């Protein structure tokens, strides 16, 4: 008898039906949302949106900025996640709560806070340093980036502030799930802390890393509030896909807004499928003897 045909007492049925109805209702709403979007627009609208130069720019900026944000987020999330998982120190609970602030703060507040930060003397000094660096290296002319605020770096910074918090949380859980005893064994075998991390712990964190990357990328793609406040909504400069939807809706071009929304849904689904495909074929399974 296969698992699906296994006997289940009839008295359990109402319980599972309730669970199915509750869960199924939510899934149905998600499917309906996607269907509503797809039926509202036509392939013509979608093609027209894809051919519009300002939308092409927004797609390019979204893809590039989200990728940079993801790399930066992982760069920070791995060490923080590992330290928070393994080390005990005074004020750990406080640091833990601080790391959740970007998740619980309203997005607009993050944007506003970033804007205010870059108006302080320290923020202005950082901006000045950045401008000087871009001028000296000639990158300002070549890339068309002159400063941070209301320029492309502000888009990445706004995305990073939120996406990184999700990546940190994911990496912390990932490291929590890797038994510390394996590191102990590695240490007795002669590994240093760093060798034990890179040779034993990090390879096992591959799935978590992929999940953190997916989450950070998807979160960055959907970021709107902080970008609107901190970067503005300037076409061909700081316009990312959510900004496009906002701008198109504000001028009454609903068809283009829906087409871009659908595009974002497709990108998000593609990222999820990619992450799951690569995530599932893990070496950890160890099914194929070499």
């Amino acid at each position: 008898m296969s698992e699906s045909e296994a006997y289940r007492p009839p008295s359990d049925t109402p319980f599972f039906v309730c669970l199915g109805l509750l869960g199924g209702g939510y899934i149905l709403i998600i499917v309906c949302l996607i269907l509503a979007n797809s039926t509202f627009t036509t392939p013509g609208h979608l093609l027209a949106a894809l051919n519009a130069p300002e939308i092409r720019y927004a797609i390019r900026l979204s893809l590039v900025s989200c990728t940079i944000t993801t790399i930066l987020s992982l760069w920070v999330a791995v060490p923080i996640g590992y330290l928070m998982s393994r080390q005990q120190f005074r004020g750990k609970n406080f640091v833990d709560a601080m790391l959740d602030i970007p998740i619980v703060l309203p997005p607009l507040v993050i944007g506003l806070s970033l804007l205010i930060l870059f108006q302080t003397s320290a923020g202005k000094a950082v901006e000045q340093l950045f401008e000087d660096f871009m001028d000296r290296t000639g990158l300002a002319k070549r890339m068309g980036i002159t400063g941070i605020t209301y320029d492309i770096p502000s888009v990445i910074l706004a995305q990073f502030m939120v996406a990184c918090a999700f990546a940190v949380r994911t990496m912390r859980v990932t490291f929590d799930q890797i038994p510390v005893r394996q590191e102990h064994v590695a240490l007795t075998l002669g590994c240093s802390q760093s060798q034990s991390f890179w040779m034993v712990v990090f390879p096992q964190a591959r799935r978590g890393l992929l999940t953190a990357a997916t989450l950070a990328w998807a979160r960055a793609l959907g970021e709107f509030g902080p970008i609107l406040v901190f970067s503005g909504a300037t076409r061909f400069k700081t316009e990312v896909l959510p900004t496009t939807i906002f701008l198109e809706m504000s001028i009454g071009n609903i068809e283009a807004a829906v087409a871009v929304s659908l595009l974002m849904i497709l990108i998000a689904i593609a990222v999820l499928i990619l992450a799951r495909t690569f995530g599932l074929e893990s070496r950890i399974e160890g099914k194929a003897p070499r």
Partner: protein
Amino acid sequence: MIRVTDLCIFQGEFALKDVSFEIPEGEYGVLMGKTGSGKTTILECICGLRPMQSGTVELSGSDVTRLKPGERGIGYVPQDGSLFVTMTVREQLSLAMTIRHWPMQRIDERVNELAEMLGIHGLLDRYPHGLSGGEIQRVALGRALSSGPSILCLDEPLSALDDETHSEICDLLDSVKQQTGVTILHITHRKREMRRLADKLLKIEDGIVEEEDLNDSAQDASPA
């Protein structure tokens, strides 16, 4: 030889004070005690994995109290084996030697020698996923012995094994001791295991470690 002198550990409400004992060179010491009595804590202190407030640890005549775990010449086998899930058995057995920059040929020879001794030749290119409890413990033992340590610390390595595998691994531990001459500290709950393997019996109770006569324990009829 393992000599622990006046070991003190305080951790929250848990405390071990002035713990002292010795296991002579090449002997098989078994440490028994109730759950939560501090057996694993003592073993981790000997391995250098846990800070201690005071006391000294001497291994094979050298004071290793301030040395890092990898410098103490100890092989460590935890309860669940704790195999590295992303490494093949061969990679696990090679790790300690790779870290010490042994030549490749010598590493291969040593891996084959260990595989022969532990009967794990057929497992060398497999990952830990899907190995049986007995196989996991054999690999963990091989990994601990790989760089030729003079001390072996075993933290309840047989607790999750069925009776048949348990007996097999007991025979294996006996043969490892005979072949390598390694000094062993083995933590266990099972009296049968202790009677089968121990040259020296240590019991921990209320934070005090005392040596017990093996003959007295052998007369104890309880089969636990």
